[in-house]
């Protein structure tokens, strides 16, 4: 996998993970271009497309698009399930995840992704193992600064298609 982007229907990037070394300018340009390409597609279209010399696999969950750019010989369907597994992981961790969770806890979204994918390849596909790793890390710190704050309940939750 070359990179993964999460963005909203308005085209705002919510998370970006690059597995190839690129300059910031280049990343922004590629991101902008790809986001526009995907937002321009209709709902029932194929989840895969050729884009530059890459294959793009994307899926929309509620208000967020998840999009992966993979290489010529990579498997599209399994990439679609990489996306789904990541959504499941977020969902389980945050409990009915919504876009706001990812905005406000972007660092957690990155940590979870790093446990699941590394260097663009699946590292650990077991949901239990990934979440265990993340929760252990949380435990290491929850003793430090726990601050209770009210949690909003989000109207838009991810559906499980």
């Amino acid at each position: 996998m070359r990179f993964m982007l999460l963005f909203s229907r308005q085209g705002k990037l919510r998370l970006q993970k690059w597995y190839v070394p690129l300059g910031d300018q280049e990343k922004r340009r590629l991101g902008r271009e790809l986001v526009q390409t995907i937002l321009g597609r209709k709902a029932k279209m194929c989840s895969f497309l050729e884009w530059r010399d890459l294959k793009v696999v994307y899926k929309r969950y509620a208000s967020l698009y998840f999009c992966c750019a993979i290489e010529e010989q990579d498997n599209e369907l399994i990439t679609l399930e990489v996306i789904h597994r990541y959504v499941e992981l977020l969902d389980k961790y945050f409990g009915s995840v919504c876009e706001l969770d990812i905005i406000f806890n972007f660092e957690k979204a990155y940590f979870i992704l790093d446990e699941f994918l590394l260097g663009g390849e699946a590292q650990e596909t077991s949901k239990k193992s990934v979440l265990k790793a993340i929760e252990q890390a949380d435990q290491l710190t929850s003793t430090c600064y726990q601050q209770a704050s009210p949690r909003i309940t989000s109207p838009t939750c991810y559906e499980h298609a």
Partner: protein
Amino acid sequence: MPAVSKGDGMRGLAVFISDIRNCKSKEAEIKRINKELANIRSKFKGDKALDGYSKKKYVCKLLFIFLLGHDIDFGHMEAVNLLSSNKYTEKQIGYLFISVLVNSNSDLIRLINNGIKNDLASRNPTHMNLSLHCIANVGSREMAEAFAADIPRILVAGDTMDSVKQSAALCLLRLNRTSPDLVPMGEWTARVVHLLNDQHLGVVTSATSLITTLAQKSPDDFKTSVSLAIARLSRIVTSASIDLQDYTYYFVAAPWLSVKLLRLLQCYPPPEDGALRGRLTECLETILNKAQEPPKSKKVQHSNAKNAVLFEAIALIIHHDSEPTLLVRACNQLGQFLQHRETNLRYLALESMCTLASSEFSHEAVKTHIETVINALKTERDVSVRQRAVDLLYAMCDRSNAKQIVAEMLSYLETADYSIREEIVLKVAVLAEKYAVDYTWYVDTILNLIRVAGDQVSEEVWYRVIQIVINRDDVQGYAAKTVFEALQAPACHENLVKVGGYILGEFGNLIAGDSRSSPLVQFKLLHSKFHLCSVPTRALLLSAYIKFINLFPEVKATIQEVLRSDSQLRNADVELQQRAVEYLRLSTIASTDILATVLEEMPPFPERESSILAKLKRRKGPGNQPGAEEARQERERERERERSLNGSAEHREGGAAASAKSSPSVDVLSVAALPTNRPRPVSSVSLMQTPFLASCAAPSSLSAGPMTSLYPSADLLGPTGSPPSTGGSLLVDVFSDSLQAGPAPLDLAPPNTAVSEDNFSRFICKNNGVLFENQLLQIGLKSEYRQNLGRIYVFFGNKTSNQFLDFSSTVNCPDLLKTKLNVHTKPADPTIDAGAQLQQILNIECLEDFTPAPVLDIQFRYGGTLQNFGVKLPVMLNKFFQPTEMEAQDFFQRWKQLGAPQQEVQKIFKAKHPMDTEVTKAKIMGFGTALLDGVDPNPTNFVGAGVIHTKNTQVGCLLRLEPNTQAQMYRLTLRTSRDTVSQRLSDLLSEQF
């Protein structure tokens, strides 16, 4: 109050994020961010030492600001400090910041490496994992140098925790990708292979990826992985679905691992060992069988995971290309998917079948699906799926179905999306040539191509049809007759005029016997198109005219009259003027014999690979695998040869064209179905070794004389390496004579600094592409803009085989523009080598809104002549747009605010292109504004918003585009706070639809 994170909240961060979200405008957001940056900076600089929590919070805020798209130029040191914190989350945030923000050449890398080193040595698995993740994420050379030796050790050590092994494996994979030379092979490689046997499936999953990457580079070192991978795969596919516990995904056993194992096996040929091979075949059969079983779940995840494994298995079967039964089964399975209700599966089936079509075992099986694929081309609603169908038709095409496939592609082309037209044109042209049994069909097909998609017919395509017609005398009469008929159409594409001009100029005599296509009729027909054509085409037509003078003495007077007219002799274009002068002179003073020699029929082109095929190969895509495709063609030719030995009737038909190639048929004239044919004047003696046209092909050849080339693009048509004709030949005498007799053509020419703006408008909605091209030079652009600044990379390509000397390229701003736009140019090198490319960077700053465009002045010396011309640079006001997202309510409020009459510009105009919604959307976004969904109550209308950034001011712009498909009209309304901006934007954008 916003949502707060689990585990450890950073309240300040949450407040900041929600502040940003509440910002009503981009300006407010920037203001809030600057305030925060100032705050953080002062905290970091302050005398008071920050505690770990605050440091973490501020670093996290900086990260958030960066991810919003703003530049961050401090805080790196604080992030590095966090690495040495003993609190896990502080360390974690430090690593995250570094992974996202530190690029490989940072001077902090030594400090970072130090932190990583400590964590790697800590024997604390969570800390080790963090540091390994960081190495994998950054993957820089410095990190590879520092750790490439340690990681293999960690990976294979007996006491390493499973989770650390997983990270280490993928970390090594990343380093091997970025700096393969730094990852040493060693005794660890053998032990890595044995990780395929590991108890822990997570470890196997990571290790398989690593082994695959390594095996691609040095297959011999990892050969033993084949048997282990097959054993592992076999255990997975035969396991009951619950055996693998959490590695079972929606009732599919370890789909990720299965896919990876199948991928690893594709690095190797089929195993030689019979038992092993049998076991693998069993696995593959089991996977194919499972596809036929009823699904264990209705969830799409179940079928996706199952089919992911299936497609990878099919990829392996195709890669091995050795088991006919499996190949045919794979083909049947894909055939079922072709009609599946899931678009994704149809797409993948079409894609996969493309590769199957190139296997000799399954080629026939693939062909049985032709009707389904044609149907897909007609009915699929998604252009990317239709593209796959085109690719597959191309791949499955052979002599038996070529006519059907070419016909279907041609009819699809009439409605095809613009994005894929050019590729289809190339494919049709290649197939038509490759499978032409009789060349009349070929000529018809290419002329049809020009009719249906003239704009997408590239030079390669029309050059090729001319090459073929010249080389095959059995088709010349037919070609002349057909182009003559095609040219009768009141509106025909310029490419047709080019082909028509060339062919009639060469072979018009073959149809001149018919009074309906007498020489005068032919000439008048061609000349009726003359005034509608571009300069290169006119130049070509002038050459056709002089050829007519040779072919048909009776039209000489008419043509001379045309050449003599002011519009030719005093044409502002130097090339046209020169041709007119020279041709007129040539026709006046040269004897019939000399004319016949100079204007002799073009000699056959040397047989070489079709330039179209070469172009198609350059375009990457699964439909164009040249290797596999060629291999099959080769086998097919083999079979054909066998058949021909048996003397079957099929060969006669199929081979007719081929035999015509080797022995030109003598009865050329009887081929054309015309009453009488006129012989072409025959030259008595050949005055030159190389025929004139061919020698002119290399532009350098006649640099001594004034004439450059008869056909402007002849360098692509003719053999490029033809020797230059030297002085002293009769020809040069004729011309030097003409120089003395008449006025020197170059003196007549106005100072040749014409400014080209042909491609200017193409860049209004895009930033990259070819700006200018002639026989000598190609100019390409890449540009990027950010707020009021822009940078353009200009690429000058020397297309010739000679050096350009004294090259200079400067930007010239009209006076009006000088106060509004700053352009800084770095001087370019003074020479461009033959075939080389030169890059020049232009930095642009917009001070104020502007209308005229800067001009790039180019000057260089080529073969003794000074070339000097200008190209309009596509720097327009809209390049300084930043898109603005807003809700309907905000939009209408601002719309009303901009209600003054001079703020609005409205334009109603006719559509110049097909009214395609997606294309329009792309153009509006390419123009630079945000495309706002759900603002306009009428969903067919387009609404956009953006801010033009100039140094002195910012101008908010709103636009609305209302298409009327019935009338094929648009109404474009622009409202901005400045009348000049509204007007300029309206002028720019309205040209695009």
